């Protein structure tokens, strides 16, 4: 039987308090799971403004439980919702939902469906990214780093959006301006996504037609966004110029130096890094440390050095989700960044002989035997993902 939905009662959702039930959009797409605490007022406004719904059966259950709880204490009460028993839903899971939603949004876009819904959904996804970063940045970064199944276009856009949010916050960009930047990042290659499936599989050199499409994609992307209703000049400018380089070697306009504005520079750095750390058909992904070295050395004159430094400091030399080898031969995953980025918190999940561990063990990497001796590509250990991802699911 199809589920039926009713609009959320605004009074049921309180800032900073776990949601009493799961919230869906008007077409029944899961937005936030029960237990997630909305911390940003703007998130709440956008959520309710775009239409937030609850499944009728779930609402009835929650109301009944609330009434039962209240019965003993407040005889007249219809009941507030039983909040104290709710566990907060974790951020890793929220980013999994964001990935699914972005994937579906791009699928609809490619099929030419739901054009009116596109911008409100990007707005909502953008604010959810910001919300997730306020909750648990380590979990957000890990969830992207440990992805092994989403199409490139989904992970690439989301990774760029997260990096824009983190860098933007670090250099003092205000919340609203950051949201614009995040939305630009979520849509910056929209002019290419119909071609992306082919590019994902292709190992042969680009055809002249494909080359032309790639050269034209910043302009195409900006045009598409304009047609979808984007009027914000900062958003459009960031998308149009995200391939411009400070030494003037970029495209489409060959802009240089100060003419390239800050939001554009932020998106450019986020775009370059997030493209480097994913497998492509024509080259293997670089591990984060190699990508950072290349960013500094080879992109030195092309991208904003200060921003590269900010990003490296934010993400860390060993970012959450990175797979590392320890001095004692164990393989572990970085769980949390630390002030000294050489010594992150790592959980070992493979024994020195190569056997997976059922229960990963926390290792203090500052101790000599557990020093991080190097990064290992995730692809070598992705079979262990079910043993790893529980670390962010509140086990």
């Amino acid at each position, binding site marked *: 039987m199809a589920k039926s939905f009713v609009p959320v009662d605004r009074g049921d959702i309180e800032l900073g308090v776990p949601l009493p039930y799961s919230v869906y959009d008007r077409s029944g797409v899961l937005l936030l799971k029960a237990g997630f605490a909305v911390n940003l007022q703007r998130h709440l406004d956008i959520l309710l403004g775009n239409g937030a719904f609850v499944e009728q059966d779930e609402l009835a259950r929650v109301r009944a439980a609330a009434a039962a709880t209240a019965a003993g204490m407040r005889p007249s009460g219809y009941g507030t919702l039983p909040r104290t028993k709710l566990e907060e839903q974790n951020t890793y899971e929220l980013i999994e*939902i964001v990935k699914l939603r972005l994937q579906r949004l791009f699928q609809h876009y490619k099929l030419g469906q739901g054009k009116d819904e596109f911008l409100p959904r990007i707005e909502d996804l953008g604010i959810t990214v910001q919300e997730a970063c306020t909750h648990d940045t380590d979990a957000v970064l890990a969830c992207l780093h440990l992805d*092994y199944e989403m199409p490139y276009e989904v992970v690439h856009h989301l990774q760029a959006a997260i990096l824009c949010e983190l860098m933007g916050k670090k250099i003092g960009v205000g919340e609203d301006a950051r949201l614009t930047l995040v939305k630009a990042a979520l849509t910056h290659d929209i002019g290419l996504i119909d071609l992306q499936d082919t590019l994902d599989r292709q190992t042969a050199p680009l055809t002249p037609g494909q080359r032309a499409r790639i050269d034209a994609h910043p302009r195409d992307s900006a045009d598409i966004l304009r047609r979808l209703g984007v009027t914000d000049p900062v958003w459009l400018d960031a998308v149009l110029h995200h391939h411009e380089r400070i030494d003037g070697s970029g495209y489409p306009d060959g802009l240089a130096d100060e003419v390239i504005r800050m939001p554009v520079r932020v998106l450019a750095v986020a775009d370059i890094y997030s493209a480097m750390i994913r497998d492509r058909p024509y080259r293997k992904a670089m591990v984060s440390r190699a990508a950072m070295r290349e960013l500094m050395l080879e992109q030195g004159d092309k991208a904003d050095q200060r921003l590269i430094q900010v990003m490296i400091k934010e993400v860390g030399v060993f970012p959450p989700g990175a797979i590392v080898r320890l001095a004692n031969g164990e393989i572990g995953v970085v769980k949390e960044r630390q002030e000294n980025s050489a010594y992150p918190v790592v959980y070992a999940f493979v024994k020195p002989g190569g056997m997976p561990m059922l229960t990963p063990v926390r290792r203090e990497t500052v101790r000599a035997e557990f020093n991080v001796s190097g990064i290992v590509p995730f692809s070598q250990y992705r079979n262990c993902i079910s043993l790893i991802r529980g670390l962010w699911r509140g086990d």
Partner: protein
Amino acid sequence: MDSFTWKPEYSVGDAALDGQHRGLIGIMNRLRTLLQSPALAEAGGEVEAVFDDLARYIAEHFAYEELRMADAGYPLERLAEHRHEHDELVRHVRSFHAEVAEGRYDGLQALLPYLYGEWLIHHICTSDMDYRPYLGAD
């Protein structure tokens, strides 16, 4: 208690996945034999080996199955639920592991019915069957 055997009704219609699922039955039998030994607390290494087997089974099977489901066009939301179910199985087995690590061997007695009821009958025979048609088995 008789040993557990593979039955055709456990098949999800894919030889590789069925082969992996058979591995779980092997682990259940190993655990069953262990539980019949009189001095369980002294069989520490053997007990740990069962958990090692489970870790290897999880690493061999879950990610493979999830990728296979995604490739077969299994709906995204249902795949997310399935993944969640995998995570729950891992979480439960870990809690048994933690109990045993603290010397509470009752946990081990309860592990076998858990593997049989939740893992084999509920997960494999119910949840996994949901993707069977997508693999083109029917």
